[in-house]
């Protein structure tokens, strides 16, 4: 099954340094197209840092330095000729804390298409916004109040609004940095269902603290510890039959 999948993202000996401190050590990882890959591990293990390498969000931190290669569709995303703006249109991101812009629900979703000039008319834009909200499973809840501020929604709705905002520019990959950590179990369940649906069209990488969540939503799981990739493989195998002692200790709750 795995072999039939295309490799979407490939990292070769990726190391990340914050000043003198090394946060990630020589990580080699394959992320498959149209699958959900979850990154798990104790706090400070570097899984979020690794996630942010894939859309070069770490560039915004002055002291951050990256070595090694990150390839998307066999193309190095850190080469000098590649504009990070273009990359971030291909690789969307959903953050830990829902962060809708303090603008209307419509404007939140329309922002990406507007700055990239993806639509030619107002009707086209409205259509795109509606479709994005539908894909994010939010349209029915907000269709009567598109002009209300995005910040007036509940936490779970805000997070789905952020997902709608991300998919409005039709990215190939969606990165999710603990998208449910600020949500209650019901809102979490809705988002997890959504991730299952989104998988058909997008490649998803999700950082999560909840091992149950990783087990529920992902096909591949990577376990990080102290900046090292300890174990990577099919989720079922990692959880049922981990090869590494550290992984076993973590998923059985002995550490972390």
């Amino acid at each position: 099954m795995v072999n039939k999948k295309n490799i979407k993202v490939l990292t070769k000996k990726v190391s990340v340094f914050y000043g003198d401190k090394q946060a990630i050590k020589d990580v080699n990882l394959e992320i498959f197209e149209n699958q959900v890959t979850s990154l798990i591990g104790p706090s400070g293990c570097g899984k979020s840092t690794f996630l942010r390498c894939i859309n070069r969000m770490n560039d915004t931190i002055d002291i951050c330095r990256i070595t090694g290669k990150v390839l998307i569709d066999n193309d190095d995303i850190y080469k000098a000729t590649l504009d990070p703006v273009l990359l971030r249109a291909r690789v969307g991101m959903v953050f830990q804390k829902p962060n809708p812009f303090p603008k209307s629900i419509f404007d939140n979703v329309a922002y990406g298409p507007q700055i990239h000039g993806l639509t030619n008319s107002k009707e086209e834009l409205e259509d795109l916004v509606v479709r994005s909200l539908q894909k994010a499973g939010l349209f029915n809840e907000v269709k009567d109040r598109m002009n209300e501020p995005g910040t007036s929604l509940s936490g779970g709705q805000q997070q789905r609004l952020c997902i709608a905002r991300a998919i409005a520019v039709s990215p190939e990959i969606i990165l999710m940095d603990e998208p449910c950590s600020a949500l209650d179990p019901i809102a979490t369940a809705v988002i997890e269902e959504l991730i299952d649906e989104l998988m058909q069209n997008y490649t998803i990488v999700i950082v999560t603290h909840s091992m149950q969540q990783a087990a529920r939503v992902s096909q591949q799981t990577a376990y990080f510890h102290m900046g090292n990739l300890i174990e990577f493989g099919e989720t079922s195998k990692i959880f049922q039959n981990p090869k590494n002692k550290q992984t076993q200790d973590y998923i059985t709750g002995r550490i972390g």
Partner: protein
Amino acid sequence: MNKNTRIIAKSLKKRNRSESTFRLMGLLGIISAISFLVIILFSIINEGKKAFVSTQIKLDIFFDSKILDPGNSGKITEIENANYQTLIKASLLNFFPDVKTRNDQRDLLSMISSSEQENLMRTLTNDISLMNTKKEFWLKSSSKYDVINKNPEMIDFAEEDRLISNQQLFWFNELKKDNRVKFGFNKIFFTAADSTEPEQAGIWGSVMGSFFTLFVTLLLSFPIAVAAGVFLEELAPKNRFTHFIEVNINNLAAVPSIIFGLLGLAIFLNVMHLPRSAPLVGGMVLALMTLPTIIIATRASLKAVPPSIREAAIGMGATKMQTVTHHVLPLSMPGISTGTIIGMSQALGESAPLLMIGMVAFIVDVPESFLDSSTVLPVQIYLWKSTAARGFVELTAAGVLVLLTFLILMNSFAVIIRKKFEKKW
């Protein structure tokens, strides 16, 4: 009760006492501050309100063509240049027929403000049919009478300590008995510029001077300061050089304002040869002074925008500049405008740097452009305060009231903006 409880209970009394002492001291501090404020405001309002009215005297003026146009030419220029003082004198002598000597007549005439001659001329030239008719006028009294009328306790002063002689006081009282004296709205105060005669001096010239000056200040300091703040906070790399600039901007905010005046004198006047006493130069000097205030406010409000908004925009593929102009800057605008208004009201109350570039001159005309010689509100107040004539005391207080009104208006505007556009995260 165990041992510890007893120890605590013992010390509790002392701890509570020190708390109530502290509370009392704080309360005393606030009460004394408020009472000083009330005293100051009360005395200024009490003095200043007198300048908003002026003493007016009712006279019947006969536009005598024998005086105004002896050649009967009918020419407007002839009528404009005629001697209107004679009309006022004739009217007064009509009321006091037994004033004969030249000196007494001059003393009598000094009761009416000399500015009224021009007003009579204007009235007549606007309506020439008034010629050879009699009309009732409320004429402004001169400042001395005005002061006596507003401060009745001065009537009991000895003659040599009083502004007007016994004879003059008698005439004034006669007019009063005949219901020919009243207080009217002092329009001149709100329409004229400075004058050597207190009853002819107004605040409008310096209000316009302040307006032109602050306009230049706002135009220069706001865009430069916001650009500098955005650059330092959002775009500049955090290195030693930018840190050095930051420290220096913070230090500039604490530089005594007169230094900026000296800088303006040296560069704007002596090197660039810009006009002296002009609002343009005053505005430039005040802009230098206001820049650090707005830069600091800009940076503080940029810092207050949560980083999650920047991440959201950058994650969507917005460029750095788009992130700033679409999200960060609009969100920090309430803070920036508040800081700007505070900076502007600081500049409005500033006088020292303007003294250096000659805005302390005696200006009789209301300025009409950025290059006209002019003065500003606080300097006008300073000028009136240092003038000897008694009539300027009320004007000084009234000037302070006008300045305070503008300051309160601007600061309340800042509070309203802050309250209205405050974002809740």
